[in-house]
């Protein structure tokens, strides 16, 4: 769209240039991650980081839904867990090859989110959150009760072939190499979501989040864009589920439990859901805080709760948002 209104608009970077900057930052971020994997020898630290990045992707899905739709989900573990079980069951019963199982693990939860979204995105506020909780717990209960299919509460191990997409499976099970893989996926997804959020579609969904009624009265259908945001957020969550299964090679109903959705929400709030990378940042803080708190006391949840309260009261834009704000002031940008 042409824009010739003010001098300020003339110095605003054009969108392709902004994408180039973002791509540059993404490359640097990836190299930093690869550097960390090369420099940190501790398996424990790398395991923590790998878990944090994978769960950070789940939190990124939750955060994207908050950012673009203003909707809080308590049921995103369903999309994560369905992806886990899709691979695990396909491998257990030898239904399809691992590569196709991964594709299914991405498609099935995304499709469920789309069709579910056609109904639930129309429901506002807390009712939406409660519906996602109910749907998520329904999948959890099914996994618990259908012992013949899912192994019930005990779960089961996932047998993977020696290579997937030509990549040795061992790479996915070593915390150092898996960190690089997960971090690379995280960086690409954050870049992609940034492009979506700054595209005309992203600006439209932000407008619908701000004022749905006005959006309708300037001529937009408002349900489908919100459904697509939910779908995209479920896809990101499903990617996290795939990475988790490749890394962990074990699934149990815990991957569908509401407490996982709750943890992802806490990570998103700590990191700052208004930033695409905020929830991932929050996940890293959450995992390390949990580890340190676990050493101090068995009641580590209380310490995490305290951190959450402090962030919500003192830093409403989250730690990531506060950092970004400080950085902007420092370099005089924004």
């Amino acid at each position: 769209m042409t824009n010739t209104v003010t001098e300020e608009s003339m110095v605003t970077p054009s969108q392709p240039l902004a994408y180039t900057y973002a791509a540059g930052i993404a490359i640097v971020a990836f190299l930093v991650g690869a550097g960390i994997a090369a420099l940190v020898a501790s398996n424990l630290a790398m395991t923590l980081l790998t878990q944090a990045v994978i769960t950070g992707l789940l939190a990124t899905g939750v955060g994207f839904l908050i950012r673009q739709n203003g909707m809080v989900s308590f049921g995103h573990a369903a999309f994560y867990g369905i992806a886990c079980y899709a691979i695990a069951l396909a491998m257990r019963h030898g239904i399809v090859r691992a590569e196709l199982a991964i594709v299914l693990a991405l498609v099935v939860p995304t499709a469920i989110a789309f069709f579910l979204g056609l109904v639930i995105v129309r429901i506002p506020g807390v009712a939406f959150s409660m519906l996602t909780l109910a749907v998520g717990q329904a999948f959890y209960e099914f996994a618990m009760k259908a012992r013949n299919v899912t192994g019930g509460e005990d779960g089961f191990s996932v047998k993977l072939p020696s290579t997937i997409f030509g990549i040795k499976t061992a790479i996915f099970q070593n915390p150092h190499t898996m960190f690089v893989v997960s971090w690379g996926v995280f960086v690409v997804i954050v870049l992609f979501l940034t492009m979506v959020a700054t595209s005309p579609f992203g600006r439209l969904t932000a407008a619908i989040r701000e004022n749905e009624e006005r959006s309708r009265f300037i001529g937009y259908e408002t349900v489908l864009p919100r459904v697509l945001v939910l779908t995209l957020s479920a896809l990101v969550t499903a990617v996290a589920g795939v990475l988790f299964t490749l890394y962990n090679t074990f699934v149990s109903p815990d991957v569908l439990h509401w407490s996982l959705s709750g943890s992802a929400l806490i990570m998103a709030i700590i990191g700052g859901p208004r930033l695409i990378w905020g929830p991932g940042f929050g996940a890293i803080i959450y995992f390390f805080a949990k580890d340190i708190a676990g050493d101090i006391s068995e009641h580590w949840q209380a310490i995490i709760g305290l951190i959450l309260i402090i962030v919500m009261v003192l830093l409403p834009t989250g730690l990531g948002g506060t950092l970004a704000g400080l950085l902007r002031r420092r370099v005089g940008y924004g």
Partner: protein
Amino acid sequence: MAENYAIEGIDLTRSFSGFFALNGVSIAVPRGEIRGLIGPNGAGKSTLIDVLSGRAARWSGRVKMFGEDISAMSAQQRRRSGVARSFQRTNIFPDLTVLDQLEIAARAAEIPNVDEIMSELTLTALAHKRATDTSYGDQRRLDLALALIGRPKVLLLDEPAAGLSIKESLDLAHNLRDLAARWGVTVLLVEHDMEVVFSICDRITVLHLGNILAEGTPAEIREIPEVVTAYLGSTV
């Protein structure tokens, strides 16, 4: 000829728990006219705007635009067909910049840029400000700009001058009058500020308890004793 009426409401009825907000109201606004809609609180003015714009649910009757029945159309479809509206309370996107929200509206209206509307409503200097950081008067103009973008055929305005000072109200009114004339927009205006209504409207319809009490030019309306007694008093 029905096609000469830009917007028509035929036998419109809407009730809430037995109370008739609209009781078989019929109204027809000819192309290019600015029609004022006045009446005391609870007369059914906003309900009429809601029914005509597609916001209201559960009503009966028919709504036509230039003779075409648009009763079954959703609010979005009516907007795309050329029926735009503003709201009693400022209804903008508070966290977006003025430019961002106008561009989003422009994309829906399929117009290439927002320079014209920003210039017409003196919003150009505010382009990069978040709407919430602008004054109330600016927000009302932005609200009007969101409704006017894409040059709608029919503009339904629900108290556009509410909360503005006398000078701001009159400036907005004359700005509106000028734009409507140049762009050929038909306007149905709900407004409590009688100075605004009587200074820019070609004709006025008076609603009372869901029924039309009177209709005529401003001069004719001033002469109707029931209207003066029930609503105008000594204000005009």
